[in-house]
C-alpha cells in the first residue's frame, strides 16, 4: 500500500510539475502587439543551443519601466542582462557562452521565473530595438510549446497506475481472503451482518490509512534524492514536490475512504468460489479469433511496410491493435492452459508434468497474477514506440541537421556571407508562379548537392530538377513555367523538366524547382538559406551567424527544446517503466508466493508419499515459469506488433522497434529469474507434518 501511494504521488506530481513549467514558460513569454499604439517596449526571444541544451535569450529594448516577467524585479536596461543561476555558472565555465549574452550581468532570475534549476535563460537589454517585435508585456503564449504534460501524465498513468491498481487489487484480495475466516466466525456467533461489514470496512480503512501515512513518508524520503538528481535532465525546484497538509489530508481521506468501501464490499457473503472450474461462455474458436485477426492485421501492416509501400490506414492499424489487445485478454487463459497441457503431456520429467498439470488446471488465477506484467509489457512497447516516433520527429539523423536562416532583410553581401558559412548550402527564393501549388526556386551547386543528392543522373552545372522522392512525387507538373523577378525587375523563367532529384524532399520539399547552380545572390533576392550541417557544427554555425547579424534566427530541424523534451519524455517513460515494473513484479511475486503457500498442504502430501524434493521444487518452479513465459511471450508479440504497426502505418521512416522487443524480453527474463528464485525458496515445506495436520 505504501509503495502504491508513493508511486501514485509521483504520478500525480510529475505531470503537475510539467504543467507548472509550461505556466512559467507562458508567463514570461513576450506578449506581442500589432497596433503600434499599444507598444510599450520591444522584445523578442532568440534561441540558441549550448551543446545539447537550449539557451533562450529575451532581448528587450525601449521603456524598461513596463510590466516585468516572473523572476525579475525590473526589466534590464541597455547593456544589462539578467541570467539564470545555471547560465551564470555555464558562462563562468565556458567563456564562449558569454558571447551569446551581450552586456553586463546585472543580476539573476529568481526561481519564480525559471522552469527548472538547470535552465539556461537570460533577459538581455539592448539599445536598438529595430529588429525586435513590438510588445505590451509578458504572458503571451505565442512562442511557447508545451512540455507535453498530457503525454507525461498518460505515460506515468499507464506505466504506474495500471500495475499499482493490479497490486492493490491482488493485495486486497489476499488480505480479505485471510480475514474472511474471521468474519465467518463472527457471523457464526450471530454478529449481525451490518456489524460484520462495518468492522471489515473499518479494518480495511485503517489499514489504508496506515499505508497512506507510510506512503507519504516514503514519498518524502524519495523526494529529496529525486529533487537533487532529477530524472534524465528533468529537474525541478524542491517546492514543486512539496506535499502540503491539504494534499496529505486529501490523500489519506481518499485512501481511507476507498479502503472502507472495498473492505465492506469484500466482506459480503458470497457463494462458494468455483472460479477455477468455471468455463468461458465463448466457444474455444471464438476466444482465439480476435487475437488471430489482430495479429494478422498488424503483421500485414508490417509486411506491406517492409515491402516499401505506405500503409496509410489508421482504421486498419487501430482495428488490428484493438483486436490484438482484446484478443490477448480473451486468449490469455487458453494460452496459459495450452502451455501447461502441452508440457504435462510431453514432458518425461515428473516435476515438469506436475507443474504443467497444475498450470493447465488453474489458468484463471494464474492469469490474474500475471495481468499486471502482461499489461505493463504491452504498455511499454506502445509508449516506447511513441517515443521512437518523437525521436524521429526531433531528428534521429543527428549528422544531417538542416539549419534554416531567413535572410529576407539582409544585404546582398551579408546574404553571401551566410551562404558561405558551409559548403553544403542552398538558397531559396519564391517564384511568381500562380499554379495550384506555389513553386519555390532553390539554388545549390553540384558540390553542395553531391553530398546529399542521390540522383540517377550526374549533376551538371545549370541542370534543373523537380524535387521528389520514391514515395512522394513532385507537386509540380512537367513543362510548367515559373518566374523569378531579379533585383532589377527582370523576369527569369524556369520551366520544370521531367528529371527529378531524388531524396532531397527533406531539404527542399516537393514544390521546389532545384537549379544546380551557385546561388546568384547579386541578381536574385534570396528569402532564406539552408545549410546541411552535422550536429556538432550547428553551434559553430549559430555563432558565425550571430557574428554576421545577432538578430538572425537559426532554425533547425533539431530543436534543442524538442530534443530536451524528448529526453524528458524518455526519462519519465523509463522511470514509469521501472516503477511499474517493480509494482507488477511485486504483485506477481506476492501473489505467486501466496499461491505456493496456499498449496503447501498438497505439496506436503506429495512429500509424504515420497516425491523427491527436487521433483517438488521443479514442479513449483514450472508452475511459475510456464504461465509467465507463455503470457509474456504473447504480450511481447502483441506489443511489438502494435509498436511496429504504429511506426509503419502512414510513415516514411524506417521503424522497427527491435530494441523495445529486446527490452520487453529482458523484463520477461528478469521476471522469470525472479520466479525461479521464488519457486526455489518457497518450494517444499520442511515440516511436512504441520501442513498435513493443517489439512
Amino acid at each position, binding site marked *: 500500500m505504501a509503495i502504491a501511494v508513493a508511486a501514485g504521488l509521483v504520478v500525480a506530481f510529475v505531470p503537475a510539475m510539467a504543467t507548472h513549467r509550461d505556466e512559467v514558460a507562458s508567463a514570461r513569454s513576450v506578449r506581442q502587439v500589432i497596433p503600434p499604439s499599444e507598444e510599450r517596449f520591444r522584445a523578442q526571444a532568440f534561441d540558441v543551443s549550448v551543446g545539447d541544451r537550449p539557451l533562450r535569450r529575451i532581448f528587450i529594448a525601449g521603456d524598461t519601466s513596463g510590466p516585468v516577467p516572473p523572476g525579475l524585479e525590473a526589466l534590464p536596461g541597455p547593456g544589462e542582462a539578467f541570467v539564470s543561476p545555471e547560465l551564470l555558472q555555464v558562462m563562468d565555465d565556458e567563456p564562449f557562452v558569454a558571447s551569446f549574452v551581450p552586456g553586463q550581468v546585472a543580476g539573476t532570475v529568481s526561481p519564480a521565473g525559471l522552469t527548472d534549476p538547470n535552465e539556461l535563460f537570460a533577459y538581455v537589454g539592448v539599445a536598438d530595438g529595430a529588429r525586435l517585435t513590438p510588445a505590451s508585456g509578458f504572458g503571451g503564449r505565442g512562442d511557447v510549446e508545451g512540455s507535453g504534460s498530457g503525454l507525461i501524465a498518460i505515460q506515468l498513468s499507464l506505466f504506474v497506475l495500471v500495475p499499482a491498481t493490479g497490486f492493490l487489487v491482488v493485495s486486497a484480495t489476499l488480505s480479505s481472503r485471510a480475514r474472511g475466516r474471521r468474519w465467518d466466525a463472527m457471523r457464526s456467533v450471530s454478529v449481525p451482518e451490518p456489524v460484520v461489514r462495518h468492522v471489515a470496512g473499518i479494518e480495511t480503512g485503517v489499514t489504508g490509512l496506515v499505508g497512506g501515512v507510510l506512503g507519504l513518508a516514503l514519498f518524502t524520503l524519495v523526494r529529496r534524492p529525486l529533487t537533487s538528481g532529477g530524472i534524465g535532465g528533468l529537474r525541478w525546484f524542491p517546492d514543486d514536490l512539496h506535499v502540503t497538509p491539504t494534499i496529505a489530508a486529501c490523500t489519506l481521506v481518499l485512501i481511507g475512504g476507498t479502503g472502507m468501501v472495498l473492505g465492506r464490499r469484500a466482506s459480503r457473503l458470497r457463494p462458494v468460489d468455483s472460479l477455477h472450474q468455471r468455463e468461458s461462455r465463448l466457444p474455444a474458436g471464438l476466444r482465439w479469433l480476435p487475437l488471430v485477426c489482430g495479429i494478422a492485421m498488424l503483421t500485414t501492416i508490417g509486411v506491406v511496410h517492409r515491402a516499401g509501400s505506405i500503409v496509410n490506414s489508421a482504421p486498419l492499424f487501430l482495428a488490428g491493435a484493438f483486436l490484438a489487445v482484446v484478443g490477448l485478454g480473451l486468449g490469455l487463459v487458453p494460452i496459459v492452459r495450452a502451455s501447461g497441457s502441452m508440457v504435462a503431456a510431453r514432458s518425461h520429467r515428473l516435476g515438469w508434468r506436475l507443474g504443467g498439470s497444475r498450470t493447465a488446471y488453474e489458468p484463471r488465477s494464474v492469469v490474474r497474477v500475471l495481468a499486471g506484467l502482461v499489461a505493463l509489457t504491452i504498455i511499454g512497447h506502445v509508449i516506447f514506440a511513441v517515443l521512437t516516433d518523437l525521436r524521429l520527429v526531433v531528428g534521429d539523423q543527428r549528422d544531417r541537421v538542416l539549419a534554416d536562416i531567413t535572410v529576407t532583410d539582409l544585404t546582398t553581401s551579408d546574404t553571401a556571407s551566410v551562404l558561405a558559412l558551409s559548403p553544403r548550402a542552398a538558397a531559396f527564393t519564391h517564384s511568381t508562379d500562380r499554379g495550384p501549388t506555389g513553386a519555390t526556386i532553390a539554388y545549390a551547386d553540384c558540390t553542395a548537392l553531391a553530398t546529399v543528392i542521390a540522383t540517377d543522373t550526374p549533376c551538371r552545372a545549370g541542370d534543373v530538377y523537380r524535387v521528389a522522392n520514391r514515395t512522394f512525387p513532385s507537386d509540380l507538373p512537367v513543362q510548367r513555367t515559373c518566374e523569378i523577378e531579379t533585383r532589377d525587375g527582370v523576369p527569369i523563367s524556369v520551366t520544370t523538366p521531367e528529371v527529378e532529384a531524388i531524396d532531397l524532399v527533406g531539404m527542399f520539399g516537393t514544390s521546389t524547382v532545384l537549379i544546380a547552380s551557385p546561388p546568384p545572390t547579386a541578381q536574385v533576392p534570396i528569402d532564406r538559406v539552408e545549410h546541411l550541417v552535422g550536429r556538432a557544427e550547428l553551434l559553430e554555425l549559430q555563432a558565425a551567424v550571430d557574428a554576421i547579424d545577432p538578430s538572425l534566427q537559426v532554425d533547425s530541424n533539431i530543436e534543442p527544446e524538442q530534443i530536451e523534451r524528448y529526453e524528458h519524455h524518455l526519462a519519465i517513460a523509463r522511470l514509469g517503466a521501472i516503477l511499474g515494473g517493480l509494482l507488477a513484479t511485486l504483485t506477481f511475486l506476492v501473489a505467486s508466493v501466496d499461491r505456493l503457500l496456499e498449496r503447501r498442504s498438497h505439496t506436503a502430501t506429495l512429500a509424504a508419499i515420497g516425491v523427491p524434493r527436487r521433483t517438488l521444487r521443479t514442479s513449483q518452479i514450472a508452475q511459475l515459469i510456464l504461465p509467465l513465459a507463455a503470457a509474456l511471450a504473447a504480450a511481447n508479440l502483441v506489443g511489438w506488433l502494435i509498436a511496429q504497426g504504429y511506426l509503419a502505418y502512414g510513415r516514411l521512416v524506417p521503424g522497427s522497434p527491435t530494441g523495445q522487443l529486446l527490452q520487453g524480453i529482458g523484463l520477461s527474463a528478469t521476471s522469470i529469474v525472479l520466479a525461479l528464485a521464488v519457486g526455489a525458496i518457497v518450494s517444499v515445506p520442511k515440516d511436512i*507434518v504441520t501442513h498435513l495436520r493443517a489439512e
Partner: protein
Amino acid sequence: MISQVLAASDVLVRFGATTAVAGVDLEVAASESVAIVGPSGSGKSSLMHCLAGLIVPTSGTVHLAGVDLGPCGPEQRAALRRSSVGFVFQFADLVPELSLLDNVALACELIGSSRREAVQDAGSALDRLGVGSLAARRPGQVSGGERQRAAVARALVHRPKVVFADEPTGALDTENGTRVMDQLLEAASEAGAAVVVVTHDPAVARRCARRLEMRDGRIEGTVAVASAP
C-alpha cells in the same frame, strides 16, 4: 518366525515442552492390521507420523521394512516411503489437477516404473477398487467415497510393506466408510501389506486384527479383535 515390517522401541516424541509420544514399543507383522485409537491429543497421529518416517523421534528407534530410520536423512526416508509405504489420509489428498489414473500412477512412477507400466498398474488398481470407470476424472469430479477408494488404490498400487491410514473414513458416511475400510483391508491383505489405522471410530478399529489404545502418549492397552478379516 513372523517377519516384522514395523518395529518401534521406546519411542519418545517431544514438541518443545509437550510430550506427544512417551516411550512406545510396537511391532507390526506383515499383512497385519493394527488400529491405534484414543482421544484427541493422545499422540496417535504423532506416533503414526513417527512410524512412517515423517518425523524423527526425540529418542528411541524405529525400524521400517527392516531399515533403521535413525541414521536416515530426509531423502533416504522419502525413498523408503516411496518404496515401502502407502498413505491414506482423511480427505484422500489426491493431487487435484491430476486424474484419478494419474494420481495412482504417480505412486508407481515414483518407484521407477515406466509411464506405460504405471498407467497399466494404476488402471488395474482402480478397477479392483471399483472406480476404474472414473479413471479419467479429476478428484473434484467424483464423490468423497470414490475419491477415498482412489486414494486406497494409490496407497497400494506399488505394493508397499505398510499402509498408514489416518482417519480414512473420517470424511465419509457410514456406508461409504464401511466400504472403503473393507476394500482397504482386503486389498492390503491381497498385497501382503500391513495396515496401521489411526482412528476415533470404534467401528473402524474393530475391523483391524489388533487395537492399541493410546492415552497421554502411551499405549495403555492392546486388544485382539475377533472380527478382523
